[in-house]
């Protein structure tokens, strides 16, 4: 035997009210579809450009930080070829325009197979392999054994 019906929703208020609701629902759905069509077309058109549009909320914050010195990361990646996988590395930041904290984070992207110990203005006191980032897009690997 079924228990009492617990109502979760109300019955429509007659056919007139229902018809108005249907019409409103139809207009709202049509408006939603129009918004989806317009926004999708606009976004699709922007994606046709060679540069990906990276201006959404999180992208604005992250990419403007991560790409603030576009040449430094490829320079570090170039140095990766001279380092062994798993090798401990210190990044010497000799370019005064570069922030060592930023270099420390981005070096982990550029040297994924190495162990980046840290980054700073001065050479690390221990005898580690160093990647020197100098002014004018200069990069040099100083080996721990040489």
């Amino acid at each position, binding site marked *: *035997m*079924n*228990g009492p*019906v*617990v*109502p*979760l*929703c*109300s*019955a*429509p208020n007659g*056919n007139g009210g*229902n*018809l108005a*609701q*249907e019409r*409103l*629902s139809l207009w709202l*759905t049509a408006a*939603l*579809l129009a*918004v*989806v*069509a317009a*926004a*999708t077309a606009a*976004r*699709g058109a922007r*994606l046709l450009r060679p540069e*990906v*549009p*990276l201006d*959404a*909320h*999180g*992208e604005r*914050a*992250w*990419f403007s930080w*991560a*790409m603030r010195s576009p040449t430094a990361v490829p320079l570090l990646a170039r140095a990766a070829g001279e380092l062994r996988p798993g090798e401990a590395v210190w990044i010497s930041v000799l370019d005064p325009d570069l922030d060592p904290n930023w270099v420390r*984070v981005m070096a*982990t*992207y550029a040297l994924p197979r190495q162990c980046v110990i840290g980054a700073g203005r001065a050479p690390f006191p221990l005898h580690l392999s160093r990647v020197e980032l100098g002014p004018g897009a200069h990069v040099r690997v100083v080996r721990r054994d040489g």
Partner: protein
Amino acid sequence: MTDSLDLLRLLTGAGLLILIGRAATRRVGFRLAPGELALDGAVGLSLAVPVAFGCLALGVPLPPRVIAGAEAFSAVFLFLALSRQRPPAESHRAPVSEQRGLRSLSALLSAAAFAVCVWKWARVPLWSWDHYAIWGMKARKLFPFSSLDLEILRLPALTVSNPQYPLGLPVAWRLLTLGEPSARAFRGAHALFGLGALLALRQGVRRATGSDVLANALSGVLCLSPLFWDSEALGLAEMPLAFLAVAAAALLLELRHPPAVPAWAAGAAIGFVSWIKQEGVVLTGLLLLLGAVVVVGSRRSPPDRRRLVAALVLPAVVVAGAGWWLDRVLLPRGFGFFVGNWRERGLARLHDPLPIVRALARELLSTDWLGFWIVMSIVFAVALLRRRWPAVFVLSAVAADLAAFASVYVFTYLDPAEHIASSFFRIAAATVPLALLGSALLAERCAPREGAGSGGMRASSGAPASPGSPRSSAPPRA
């Protein structure tokens, strides 16, 4: 060649998880309704990930072939074990009368909106830091030789990776990609989770309203939201969390009379939400509450309701509890936002809460949302005024989830403004599909059923109302 291999592994992994879910939900026949497949995938993940994590924690290695074989075996085993049970009713809601052209156009628009997002995800040049140092790092580094090695999380240098975070997502990625995910596979998995969220939302809306056009329109809106368009979420836990939360809510709608899925499968999916992210714990609690409301408010006898609530709550508590216990036993503590004297901090901030409220409002009113939260507030007010309780309950759950995280900013050891700026937007984005599903419930009885005329609207259960049944506007007994 590698591209197609990655894709093949991803599709095989997803297909096997869907098979497990399909066997568990005991769907009728072999129809390949996309929305049902998404819900099956969510159930498959909810069952397979805890089992896989349990095996890994016990020291059992899980190389790709073993994963694939075990998943196929589990699907067959579940199918045979549950074959004596009566299959649930077909997931069906009488369709509303809509022009075929409009249906096709709306489906095309929704597909185009999703395709644009996938196109962007494929072109994003760099992983966000949270993927690189937290989520992706764990999926790559914690499973040497296909076994689980959590020692790396104890390294002081990796405190930044938040070692206390749940590991459901890294394990889910490995099950989906059948091994160590490549950079391409991470993008593919993100697209699959996105597609899952879209299809689960679509299924929920169709189930509630019977309208394909509305379901497609809301799916399109989901693709416009920052959850999809903001590629910072690429490779993070927000998209999987959003998928599992909306799938769990859609499974709850499938439980309405006559149920189209077994309650225990919906319960397992609800419990698994807490495995993905710490925010998922709150969502699990709120979804359980919603589930209880759905069951209590259904046209069932009291013993039936009690049985159904137990069948829903027990698996949810077991799955969520197992995740909590395993994390507590296996993972290093790390330090949460409540480190230090949080009471004193909180009381000091509560003396002048305006800066926090302002910062939260700034995030929710950002132009990136295209007015989403303003519209949701209006929908909530209308639902409340018109006493559309299902919509009120779901939207209240979304509001409660946001409020729970707003309260964290009161006690956090970080500067609240910076903490809000770095996380609240993403947390809010993960609730978008759930909010859209809630808003669709407002339209639940507006659409005319085919063959029923405009006066033939049925109530939320989707079943014919018994003659004289008081479908009044009174709230349900909870």
